[in-house]
């Protein structure tokens, strides 16, 4: 596969663009594999008869058979799969939702902005907070700040999102909280419609979603930086007479931050595929909420669509991570 691809790719110019092109080809291949696995899990394994579900309650045998024929469910599996892929690739058609007959592709794209808003906002918070706390803790290990920060991080990791979210809502929500401070669930408005409401409705979900990530990142950053600070080249930098700030930022942090980049790419990719728990608790109409509802109703085309979307984001995030890697670590060559 690589060999046959190599020659047309060479025409693309710089090694970096060739690299990206090759990774994109791989992405297509991976998405095919993911779609096949998802397809097999949902259609080939006994999970209830899709045709009966689609036909609805009280449908008679003949109706179900008609639906079965309409949905290609009476064909062999490979033909069903081929049909599904053909529709996706040629027409960006993911089929129709079993529950409300809506176009799955439309549903996915219309719910994407909410998920992106939630994921990116939370990502900014946890990256800034987590990395900053990690650096400060590593610079003064065993100090009071470090102990409080790492204790807090342990709490942050241990508290599940849904529990924390429900507690916060019970205490602070506008209509049924102890103090009426934050908007109710389901108050999400798109950024383009009402930026103010968009921000206030997402603020608490951002903070709660970012908390456990910030805690993990702080611990990761602290551990890595402590290890790096003890390395010879940091001592070399210090012996050069560099300021503490320059030693830490230019030499130590730059080396210690690579695992953070890896984790960040993957975490963000996963969240873009839908922050299921946060979206469900706060009733944010994103991909996560969509997939949660779809799983509840065994809504197979929607589940398929969300799985493919999630896989797409994770793979893209991985490619981006590799490119960022090459930027922060010049030893890495993209080729």
């Amino acid at each position, binding site marked *: 596969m690589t060999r046959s691809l190599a020659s047309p790719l060479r025409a693309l110019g710089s090694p970096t663009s060739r690299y990206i092109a090759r990774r994109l080809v791989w992405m297509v291949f991976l998405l095919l594999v993911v779609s096949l696995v998802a397809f097999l899990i949902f259609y080939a394994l006994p999970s209830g008869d899709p045709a009966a579900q689609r036909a609805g309650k009280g449908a008679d045998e003949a109706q179900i058979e008609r639906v079965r024929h309409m949905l290609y469910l009476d064909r062999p599996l490979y033909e069903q799969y081929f049909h599904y892929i053909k529709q996706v690739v040629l027409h960006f058609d993911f089929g129709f939702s079993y529950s409300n007959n809506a176009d799955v592709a439309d549903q996915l794209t219309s719910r994407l902005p909410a998920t992106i808003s939630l994921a990116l906002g939370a990502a900014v918070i946890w990256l800034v907070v987590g990395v900053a706390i990690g650096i400060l803790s590593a610079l003064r290990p065993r100090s009071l700040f470090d102990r409080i920060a790492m204790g807090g991080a342990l709490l942050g990791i241990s508290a599940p999102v849904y529990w924390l979210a429900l507690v916060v809502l019970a205490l602070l929500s506008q209509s049924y909280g102890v103090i009426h401070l934050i908007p109710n669930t389901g108050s999400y408005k798109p950024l383009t419609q009402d930026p103010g409401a968009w921000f206030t409705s997402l603020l608490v979900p951002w903070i709660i979603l970012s908390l456990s990530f910030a805690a993990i990142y702080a611990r990761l950053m602290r551990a890595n930086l402590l290890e790096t600070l003890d390395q010879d080249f940091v001592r070399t930098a210090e012996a050069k007479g560099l300021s503490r700030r320059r030693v830490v930022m230019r030499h130590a942090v730059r080396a210690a931050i690579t695992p953070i980049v890896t984790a960040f790419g993957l975490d963000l990719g996963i969240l873009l595929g839908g922050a299921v728990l946060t979206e469900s608790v706060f009733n944010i109409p994103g991909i996560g909420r969509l997939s949660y509802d779809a799983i509840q109703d065994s809504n197979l085309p929607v589940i398929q669509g969300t799985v493919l979307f999630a896989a797409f984001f994770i793979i893209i995030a991985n490619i981006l991570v590799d490119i960022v890697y090459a930027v922060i670590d*010049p030893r890495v060559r993209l080729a």
Partner: protein
Amino acid sequence: MSAADEQSPARDAILEVRDLRKTFGSGGGVLGGNHEQVHAVNGVSFDVLRGETFGLVGESGCGKSTTARMICRLEEPTSGEIRFEGTDVAKMGRKQLLPFRRDVQMVFQDPYSSLNPRHTVGSIIGEPFIVHGVAKDAKERTKRVQDLMDLVGLNPEHYNRLPHEFSGGQRQRIGIARALALEPKLLIADEPVSALDVSIQAQILNLLRRLQRDLGLSLLFIAHDLSVVRYMCDRIAVMFAGEIVEMADSAQLFAAPQHEYTQRLLDAVPIPEPGARKRQREQQAEIDGVGVAAAEG
């Protein structure tokens, strides 16, 4: 033993170390009990004279490197005094520390881990220029970096390469060029060749010797290998378990080692001459007949 008393005051010391101590505490267990303390350096005193090569020798773990780091102020002494050109190093504030960093430079043991793998050779050698405000424009910096690379026998064309593209010996040359960038008065070489192949060691040692002579450096040379120290040094101090057990001129130390530990160290040096080992043992036995028997018994 007091090293200071042996120095004649007429000789000009660039570095004076007096009763230097470093204690590492284990910090105790979870409940704070069981404090075990390690005396890594336990009352070390010596002088390094201007223009000489002073050797500090001893087995690994005897406190040599900790001593070196304390002299560079990369580590804080528990007690004792370090004077560089008459000024107490421990009492230097930020203002004095910067010129001190220029004057005292260190070549580290491991040429692999002591160079930042993400920086090009040019920036590794040239970074001190930026910090110390020497050679402010980039062009002049490149020129000086290339001169330094030439000085230590590296191809100046390679200043844009990363450390992993060089061999161990070349990396140590980078480390030396880096240390020399600010024209230091005192160079501390902490086991500069122990991580290198034997075939490369001699090249680096010769380079250091040449530079020391040509640039008029004072060199504090730290090693565990006696033959290396003998080749390099004018005077030698032997360290054992955090203390200096013997200090003498190089020739004198090798001709007539006084301390039992020095004798054992010398004994351990292989001699590349058939029969020499045996002759040496016989001589040794003659010199301190009873002592050896006691040590073995």
